[in-house]
């Protein structure tokens, strides 16, 4: 069972330390930190989530720049412990509103109290924010969210778009507002992480959407909620039906390959009208996770070209086209492309009038990097780079320059066309009309264009 639980900062300071069984020798946190920090001396490589030093097993996850670690002396399912760490991080975030060093330190008593309930003598007991609420007495102390760097998936709503109240997502689910009255609101986020690989000729090799519907409820009294999804939604792809769909409706219908639901969800009427009934527990949780491998329209088209331009010189042309409507804006776009290893210099040429774009040549990892603050739907951006080599190239440059890798976040856009048709809250009274926020976001998981 679990011997110790601790949270370390990025510098290795103890923020939280709790020993449950007193069987692990002293200094385990230091041993852990040294091991993780210098896992591989020469390379900036991360330690595996599970490892063993001198008979002590260390299991850790990194959340919001903090190490959440448990140690154990005995054989416990590592998946269990990893899930538990994730869940502890989430519960703590639910309680504190934001998860960072400062908020943990300020609320250490609450955190210790939480830990006491979550793990007893090394045995995980409960990690449901809802259940824990009745046993926890301390009240969170809010950390000023304004000066915090954005962290976690919720933070992406804070940038770019002004439509969301920025503080809402950093609110604790248990704290009362300073004004006294709690604001009644509920957030439903549809977060999709997409993986696309383009072949050199531009067509899609593999594509996948990895989506989740996150809910965060601040409603008092936990009323029942009806969440209606697309009517043409279907689950499970048998070989024949998927091809039918694709040919007839041209990708209009949403077909999920697999999905799973949170235990509070009732699926009684799901088969009839695609609505989910649930009584949301407090805190943030995933109503549904799903996966789609059906073909979809990728949000960006990436074209990359590398050409020889005289001896020991080459020119790179990168072009991105945003294939979505103009009222949507993608932000924090990073495009990376490995270049031949004998590249010495790179000079860049941005398009005229480019705003908020930066370029860089990373000598260590031998790649060029192009950062764009935002891309408006329908627009097109290009970058030219001139590479200087230390020696003559060996004919085939496309073989030596790597695939283009792209990272981005597009708020208020989802690739799968999975929609929340409506979100109904069981009414307690006529005047009860809580705020409902339904938000979509698409992120790149692995967005690769080969040369």
């Amino acid at each position, binding site marked *: 069972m679990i011997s110790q639980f601790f949270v370390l900062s990025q510098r290795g300071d103890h923020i939280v330390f709790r020993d449950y069984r007193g069987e692990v020798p002293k200094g385990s946190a230091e041993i852990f930190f040294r091991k993780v920090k210098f896992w591989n001396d020469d390379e900036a490589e991360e330690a595996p989530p599970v490892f063993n030093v001198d008979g002590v097993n260390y299991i850790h996850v990194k959340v919001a720049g903090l190490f959440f670690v448990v140690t154990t002396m*005995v054989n416990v399912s590592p998946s269990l412990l990893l899930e538990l760490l994730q869940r502890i991080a989430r519960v703590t975030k639910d309680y504190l509103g934001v998860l960072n060093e400062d908020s943990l330190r300020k609320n250490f008593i609450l955190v210790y109290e939480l830990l006491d309930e979550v793990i007893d003598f090394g045995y995980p*007991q409960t990690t449901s924010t809802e259940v824990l609420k009745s046993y926890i007495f301390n*009240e969170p102390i809010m950390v000023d969210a304004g000066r915090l760097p954005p962290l976690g998936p919720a933070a992406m709503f804070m940038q770019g778009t002004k439509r969301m109240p920025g503080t809402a997502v950093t609110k604790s689910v248990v704290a009362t507002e300073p004004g006294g009255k709690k604001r009644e609101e509920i957030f439903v986020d549809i977060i999709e992480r997409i993986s696309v690989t383009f072949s050199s000729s531009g067509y899609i090799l593999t594509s996948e959407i990895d989506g989740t519907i996150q809910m965060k409820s601040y409603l008092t009294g936990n009323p029942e909620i009806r969440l209606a999804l697309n009517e043409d939604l279907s689950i499970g792809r048998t070989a024949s039906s998927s091809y039918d769909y694709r040919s007839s409706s041209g990708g209009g219908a949403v077909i999920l390959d697999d999905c799973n639901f949170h235990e509070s969800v009732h699926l009684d009427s799901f088969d009839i009208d695609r609505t989910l009934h649930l009584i949301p527990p407090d805190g943030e949780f995933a109503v549904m996770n799903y996966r789609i491998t059906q073909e979809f329209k990728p949000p960006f088209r990436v074209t990359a070209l590398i050409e020889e331009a005289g001896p020991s010189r080459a020119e790179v042309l990168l072009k991105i086209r945003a294939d979505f409507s103009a009222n949507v804006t993608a932000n924090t776009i990073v495009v990376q492309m490995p270049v031949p290893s004998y590249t010495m210099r790179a000079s860049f040429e941005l398009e005229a009038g480019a705003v908020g774009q930066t370029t860089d040549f990373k000598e260590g990892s031998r790649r060029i990097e192009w950062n764009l603050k935002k891309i408006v739907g329908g627009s097109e951006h290009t970058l030219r780079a001139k590479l200087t080599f230390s020696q003559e190239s*060996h004919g085939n440059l496309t073989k030596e320059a790597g695939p283009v890798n792209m990272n981005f976040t597009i708020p208020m856009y989802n690739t799968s066309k999975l929609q929340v048709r409506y979100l109904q809250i069981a009414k307690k009274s006529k005047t009860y009309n809580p705020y409902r926020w339904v938000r979509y976001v698409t992120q790149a998981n692995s967005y690769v264009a080969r040369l």
Partner: protein
Amino acid sequence: MFGLQASGAAASWVVGRMGTDAHLYDDPDDASIPTLLDSRFDADKLDALKRLLALIAQGVDVAHFFPQVVKNVASQSLEVKKLVYLYLLHYAEKRQNEALLSINIFQKDLSDINPLVRAWALRTMAGIRLHVVAPLVLVAVKKCARDPSAYVRKCAAYALCKLHDLLPDETTSLEDTVDVLFSDNSPGVVGATAVAFNSVCPNCLPLISKHFQRLCETLPDIEEWAQILLIDIILRYVIARHGLVKDSSIFASNLTLKSQGSGDSALIGNETCGTTSTITLFRHYIEEYSECLEGDIINCSSVTSSTNNDVALLLKCTSPLLWSRNSGVILAAASVHWIMAPVDQLNRVVGPILFTLRSSPDATYVMLGNILVFAKTAPQLFAPFYEDFFICTSDPYQTKALKLEILTTIATESSIPAIFEEFQDYIKEPDRRFVADTVAAIALCAQKLPSITTSCLGGLLALVFYESSISDSANFDGEAAVLVQAILSIKAIVRTDPASHEKVIVRLVRSLDKIKEPAARSLIIWIFGEYSSIGNIIPKITPAVLKYLAWSFAAEMLETKLQILNAAAKVIIHSPEEHLEEFKKIMAHVIKLATCDLSYDVRDRARFISRLLPYSTTYLNGNNSSCQSHNEDMFKELANHIFDGKMPSIFHPTNNYRIYLPGSLSQVVLHAAPGYAPLPKPQSMELIHKTMEPTRGVGNSSESINSDAESGSSTYDSGSVYDSESEVDGSSDRNAADSNTKDNQEDPLVHVYDASVDQDITIKSEEASGSEDGLDQTLQGSASVPTIVLDKEIQLLAPEQTEKMVLQVHFHHHLLPLKLSVLCNGKRHPAKLHPDIAYFVRPLPMDLNAFLCKENQLRGMFEYARRCTFKDHLQKLEHNDDSEEHTDKNLLIAQSLASKILSNANFHLVSMDMPVTFSIEDASGLCWRFSSEILSTSNPCLITILAEGHISEPLDLTAKVNSEDTAFGLNLLNRVVAIIE
């Protein structure tokens, strides 16, 4: 109900105190903590406690506040209680004496009306982890196991785990409680009980049988953390009860081996390799597999999932869990199917497993490790899903490496073109280590699927040329690794069939000129030397290459030089006649250069070769050749063996790779972590029940505490050391208040079973050094007396010989054992000396009225009762039957019991009631009353023993103790019962 109440309280408290905690952490010392602790207001106490906890969190030792904090356990405020509990748990083990003070308040809290208070009291009491409190906790747990609140029952289940550590002897009564809790209605309690079962009696599978059906039904409703454990428990139960499933993957692989083995004996190396690995796989899964190998196991497996209801139920109830959102649960459920489901149903675990690859990257890593094991045994399961294992740019290195390995395992003829396309892209990755891994994976694929060998070699050669062309310009660390790995891969592929890959070797050798990396060069030279005589083209170029090598010898690095010498020797051994002379010249030149080399390794190698192949060095020292000629044949043979030894053709990578159960930690860290238990032996349920004790803890002899105790190196049985016959001894101790001489013991304190005792044996006190700081604050105030330790040594102890020693010790506390250690053969054997609690009281003279009056004051929580039987009188009665006919048998019984107790304990006999009945044979109503006073606190301790039953039979006695100090009282009661029995 209580939830609302509690949050209401929290809310009201919070309103006035919002946002005031921050400064507590920053400077906790700025207020006077003792004053605040003694304040009348809860708010002040809270403030003080928070400051204390802040200090603890910052690593400051604030143990000296312990007495003041403990006082506050009695507080009515839940918030104060909770914080006190936190503090208490932190220091309880350090300050055992004071911690005992709080026990009475916990006892009181256990009957509080608020279930939260009851639950927390139980949890904290169990968490204090003192041996003396353990019996009290056991009583409390038994009571709480029947509590109306589910939360309290859940806490009781978790408390069982803590108790198990403290009271390993009480396993049976713990098991009973587990049994009670398993039949609970609340899923939360059942889940917690599963946890308790796993730590209290993991091998006591028969206990499950009556709950099995209900456990399966509740499984989906319990907490996910407990689900994982419960799945494992019921899997073990089903295996132990019914055995393995005949058509499961275990037997599928077993049977294929049998048919292959009998069918054709000439198996291709690859296939045997595969099947051997499955055999070892399941040998590792099942305990004592080797015993029931072959025939036995076939008998064991007389069940199929369709005919056996339990197996069917197990599969049915774990199926929905495959779609859990917790990857740990999915893995546990999948491993049940992996072991128990028929092969044709196995593919339903594949979807869920692949689905979990999309969860957090850390969970993915663990999952991939398990998939790898699944895939090694049953590649066909995952083969169609190879695309799921393609690498994402965001994967960390470990994940990438695992995915590569899986891809190589599941690659088939149909999927390999697509996989290869991917590999070609991976080679362009900037991470050189990963590229090297990819290159190695290509070689493995090529060895597995011969149809792609040619294209693989082509690609690898191209890579070698490319890498060698860039390596001279940019010299990065990882760069050479790829090149070397590429050549290694080529080497591995070529080895399968050197003759047909002759051209590859030639091209490699030709590239020697361009390749500068010494490791790569020496590899190529090795390949050249090894295959110098194979095929048609290589022998033709051999002279030229050898000349080139001789020419470049001086400029080479150490490892390359050695390889050149080796290669040259190999060439000479295989050389045809027409080139021999030429080769000998070259050889002589090389050896001449080598003997003058700076490195002694090279010089040694040169000397070695020149001796071994003397005929090659005739040019060097011709005069010696004649006298060596008679040895020539022998040398030649020797040389042939050394340089021409055939390599074992197929390398078995999986043979020494131990495989652990899926989903276990051992599977990830690749060693049997303590607590790892293989599956039970099929259909071994009864057997397991009987041999439960010895099998526990086997397998990790050095690490676990269990095995340490069982291996018998040092045991001390706390219950049975007390001698019942040493009357004189006992009374003489009465005056020696604190020190207790123990001799004439029938059971020795220490058994040393070490066979080779030939050195000194020393007994030392563990506490001798540490007594200054923590332990000396005993209640008696007689702290200045140190623990008396005999540093007497036993010089020699032969096997079977016993040595008696008299120890005089001073106990610091009347309940805490004294830790001793026996040093022998350089090893330390711990031993504990428990104080005899019956001598920590002094007789308290009082009359019957005073006794009854006092007894009435000490009712309720101060009273404990236990039942026991008394048999001693039977012997005496028999003895007396012959001599005197008309003795009062009741009187005899009363005397024998009273004398037995008085001789073993410092009590005062208050009264002895004789029964007034018509039948003289009836002893019911016999009653003894003893009174005493605890030495340390002078609290009275009243003991009442009531008899029931027939004179000629064993009597049922009820012993009762009334004392204000409940911890002491209960321990005293246990001691009294031990004396009686």
